[in-house]
C-alpha cells in the first residue's frame, strides 16, 4: 500500500467516526458506544458546535476533502504530483492543529475525554506523518555537480 493510499484509508476511518458523532448529535443515534471517557459530556458541551455546525459535521467536511485529495493523488498523472503531496501535508497539518485544540478543550476546559475524538485525533496525526513522508518521496529532482 502506498502512502497516499494509506492516507485515503485513514481518511475513510475518520469519516466514519465523524458521521457516527454527527448522527448522535442530530439525534439519529440515541447513545454513543463509549467504553472509555465521557463522550456524551463532550458531545453535549457548548464546544461541540463550531460556527453554527456540530464539530463532528465539520469533521465530515474535513475527512471527505482529505479522502478526495488522497484518492486523486493515486490516479494516473497525479500519482507523481508533488502538489498533491504539499496539499496533503497542508490539509492533515490543519487537521492536527484543530484536533490538538479540541483535545486541549477536552482535557482542560470540559474535563472529559471523548474516545472517538481521541481516535480521530490519532488518525489525523498518523495521516499527517504519512503525508509528510509522502512529500519527502516527492521532493524535486536535486542537482549535483558531476565529479
Amino acid at each position: 500500500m502506498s502512502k497516499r493510499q494509506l492516507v485515503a484509508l485513514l481518511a475513510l476511518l475518520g469519516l466514519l467516526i465523524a458521521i457516527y458523532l454527527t448522527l448522535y448529535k442530530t439525534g439519529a443515534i440515541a447513545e454513543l458506544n463509549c467504553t472509555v471517557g465521557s463522550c456524551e459530556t463532550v458531545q453535549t458541551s457548548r464546544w461541540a458546535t463550531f460556527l453554527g455546525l456540530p464539530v463532528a459535521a465539520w469533521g465530515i467536511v474535513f475527512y471527505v476533502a482529505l479522502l478526495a485529495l488522497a484518492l486523486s493523488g493515486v490516479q494516473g498523472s497525479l500519482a507523481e504530483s508533488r502538489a498533491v503531496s504539499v496539499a496533503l501535508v497542508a490539509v492533515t497539518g490543519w487537521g492536527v492543529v484543530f484536533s490538538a485544540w479540541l483535545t486541549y478543550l477536552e482535557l482542560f476546559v470540559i474535563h472529559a475525554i471523548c474516545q472517538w475524538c481521541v481516535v480521530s485525533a490519532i488518525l489525523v496525526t498518523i495521516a499527517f506523518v504519512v503525508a509528510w513522508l509522502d512529500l519527502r518521496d516527492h521532493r524535486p529532482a536535486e542537482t549535483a555537480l558531476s565529479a
Partner: protein
Amino acid sequence: MVKKQAPPPKRGNPKAFYLVLAAVAVIGAYFLYMQMRGGSSAASATTIDPNVPLPKAEGYLLGNADAPVQVVEYADFECPVCAYFATITEPDIRKRLVETGQISLRYMHYHIPTHPNTWQASMAAACANEQGKFWEMHDAIYNAQDRWAGTATRKPKGVLKDLAGQVALNVSQWETCFDTQKYQPQLLASQQDAEKRQVRGTPTFIIGSKMIDHNMSYDQFKAYVDTAMASAKPAAPNDSAAKKGT
C-alpha cells in the same frame, strides 16, 4: 551537471487498495446502520409480553386515560436525545395524537447512571407535579437542559428553581418539596419499574405490544401508533382510572 532523481514512490496495488477501502466502507456503514437501529423499520422494535400490565398510578399522564392507545415513555431529563424528542417531535405528537384523543402519553423516569443532575431534575418535575404543573416543568427542564445539566454545572438547583418560577409555581412550596426530596420513593419506583421492563437506554417507548428503544420521528411514532390502534382491544391494558401523578 548530472540530475540526481529521487527514487519513484511506491504506487501500491490499486486493486487490493480499492478492495480494502470498499470493505472498510461497508463494515463502517453496517456499524452505523446498526447504531441507528433501522430508523423507520418496525423490525427494530422488541416484541414484549402484552400481558405484563402497564404502570398504574405511576409516572405522569398526558391526555385521556381511556385513549385507545396508551404510550409510555421512559426518559431521562439529562439525556440529549430525550431533549431532542421532547422539544422537536413531542409537540407534534401532543397536537395531532394526544389532543385528538388517539393516544395518551405517560412519562416515566429512567435515570442514566452517568448523568449527575438527572435525579435532581426529576425531583424538580415531581415537585411541580404536586402543584399540577408537571408538563409545564417537563418542557421547561428540557428546554433549559444546557443550563442545568452536568456539563454546565454541579449545582443545578439554582436553574431548576428559576424554571419553577418561570412556570408560575409556588416557589417556596416547590423548594421545600425539592429540598426534602419528598418524591424520592416515587422516583425510585419508576427506576425499578424501568429496570424490571429491561429498559436499557433513553428514550424508550412502549406503544401497544412494542418496546422501541430509540428516538423516532413523528411519522415513525405514528406508524407504531397505527399498528397498535389496529390491534387495540376494547379494554386497554392500562388502568383506566390512572390519573396524573407520580
